[in-house]
């Protein structure tokens, strides 16, 4: 095939960049050059990078605004944690358990993606966006009501809608353990997520999304974004390809959720709220729609930055807000763009692809 295609070269550089960054950070960490808090952020950074890549598939590639992506992350996190914890005695290898947890997380998130996608994808534009927001909140609330435990007989699941039931209603056998305690979330989780596993997940997500984009299916998905009516006129099945993008995106978010959930000893469902969805959306928009490299950089930098600004604790979120507004104005306002163009005469082409 074509070897001189610039987009293929860019894809290659992205992979190379991720691996290089991993090696650098890994070596730095092994030599104790990273602060404690930064080391602790490595797995969440990987999870957010995968979240950004996956959301970019929905927002940038499919062209539909989703405001509830954290919901899929949540489904993945909790199903992954349940899988990892209930298999703890059967599968001693933490790596294998992590892999299984991520697969389980992806599958459950994909199923949720189908359930959410069927109604959502019939809508258009801002109506679609608000319904994804609604689903995100619903998922958060539903998980908040879950009480899950495991014992010799298998999993015990309770749905605590009225707040009247408690852990004891699980009737666990001797030696059983509680995994999710309703609003208190999953506690006593053994943190088995590792930085290398996170990087592998990033690479996997990249392979899936980039290869998809350069295939027949990906072209069809982008055609729906660019012009739905023309896409139908050449025989592209709108529902099928919208669903394909949406569910793939949900599955990747689920895997990211499992990775994230297994990095902490406690995880609560309110962590995956509207604000988390928005945070990931900001990564995607700042990194550039449809631009996976941009998503990775934006997610990594914007997750590290607040950590790096810990010194200014009180002002960092304020600074973040101002930076967000200024960047948006700077990249989208014609006058501001012209000004930036004058200041930096040889602006890279990639920057213009953003937003």
């Amino acid at each position, binding site marked *: 095939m074509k070897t001189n295609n610039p987009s293929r070269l860019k894809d290659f550089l992205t992979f190379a960049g991720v691996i290089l960054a991993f090696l650098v950070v890994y070596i730095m960490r092994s030599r104790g050059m990273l602060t404690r808090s930064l080391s602790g952020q490595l797995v969440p950074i990987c999870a957010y990078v995968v979240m950004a890549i996956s959301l970019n598939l929905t*927002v940038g590639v499919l062209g539909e*605004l989703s405001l509830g992506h954290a919901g899929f992350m949540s489904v993945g996190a909790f199903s992954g944690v349940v899988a990892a914890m209930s298999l703890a005695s059967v599968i001693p290898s933490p790596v294998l358990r992590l892999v299984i947890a991520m697969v389980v997380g992806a599958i459950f998130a994909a199923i949720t993606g189908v359930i959410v996608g069927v*109604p959502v994808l*019939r*809508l*258009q534009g*801002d*109506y679609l*966006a*608000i*319904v994804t*927001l*609604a*689903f995100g*909140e*619903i998922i958060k*609330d*539903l998980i*908040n*009501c879950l009480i899950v435990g495991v014992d010799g007989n298998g999993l015990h699941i309770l749905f605590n*809608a*009225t*707040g009247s039931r408690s852990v004891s209603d699980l009737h666990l056998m001797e030696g059983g353990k509680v995994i999710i305690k309703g*609003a208190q979330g999953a506690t006593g989780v053994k943190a088995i997520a590792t930085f290398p596993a996170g990087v592998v997940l990033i690479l996997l997500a990249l392979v899936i999304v980039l290869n998809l984009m350069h295939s027949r299916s990906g072209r069809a998905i982008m055609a729906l974004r660019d012009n739905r*009516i023309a896409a139908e006129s050449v025989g592209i099945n709108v529902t099928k390809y919208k669903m394909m993008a949406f569910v793939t995106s949900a599955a990747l978010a689920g895997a990211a959720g499992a990775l994230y959930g297994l990095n902490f000893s406690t995880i609560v469902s309110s962590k995956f709220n*509207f604000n988390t969805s*928005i945070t990931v*959306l*900001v990564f995607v*928009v*700042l990194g550039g*729609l449809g631009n996976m490299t941009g998503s990775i950089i934006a997610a990594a930098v914007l997750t590290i930055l607040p950590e790096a600004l810990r010194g200014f604790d*009180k*002002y960092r*979120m*304020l600074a*973040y*807000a*101002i930076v*967000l*507004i200024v960047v*948006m*104005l700077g*990249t*989208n*306002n*014609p*006058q*501001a763009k012209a000004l930036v163009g004058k200041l930096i005469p040889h602006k890279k082409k990639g920057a213009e692809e953003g*937003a």
Partner: protein
Amino acid sequence: MEFLSYLISGISLGSVYAIIALGYTMVYGIAKMLNFAHGDVIMVGGYISLIAMMNAGLSPWVAILLAMVVCTLLGVLIEGLAYRPLRAAPSLAVLITAIGVSYLLQNSALLIFGANPKSYTPIITGTVHLFDGQLSISYVSLLTVAACIVIMVALTLFTSKSKMGKAMRAVSEDKAAAQLMGINVNSTISLTFAIGSALAAIAGVLLCSSYSTLMPTTGSMPGIKAFTAAVFGGIGSIPGAFLGGLILGIVESLSKAYISSQLANSIVFAALIVVLLVKPTGLLGKYIPEKV
């Protein structure tokens, strides 16, 4: 009787949603943007009125007026500085900017007033007792419902009768054509933000009066709910926002009472999903097909 009292508190809550949703829907109609900072203007209105009453010792009515003035200025300022430069930009860029503004307002409030909830003295206290005391309705509830109806009627008259209201409708339908007809698009949009923000201030005072607390994130959830209400009723439609607000308020209140307080929000959102599936542009929204 119990049902009636939940219903009334639902109507009262719904009225607050409706007032916020009216602002949302007007701004959406004219600027075609999801103004996520709208909910935070409510919070600002709450704090301004609180300071006016507590620290400056002003009467509640002056406090409301002051909150309205400050929020109006704030709304016009936000529109002029953050949204106007992006009039030609992709809608996602405007959305992210709105989120930035929302963070900015919340974190400014956090720095100034701190994270702890402040207790808010209702602007009017007391309750009416009906049916030998079996049913009690707070004056705040009555005031909220009355304010909502007055605002709704006034807005409907304003947009249908006044010259500026007609200009607003013209701009929301076709900016370029409105401009060619000699309408000043920028000032019309500013006016819309001014009205929407003034309404948010009123909503803020009423909301804080019924919940009696106030914190920097107070506006977020009601903002999202009101947005839901606006979409529920058909975004861009004034009667739609009113209807959507009321229905969602009642649904929320009754769900809390009879189904599950933990799932009340979910039931509200589920109601939105059901309505949009049956009517993809909301209860009173207009469907405009794409021309091929």
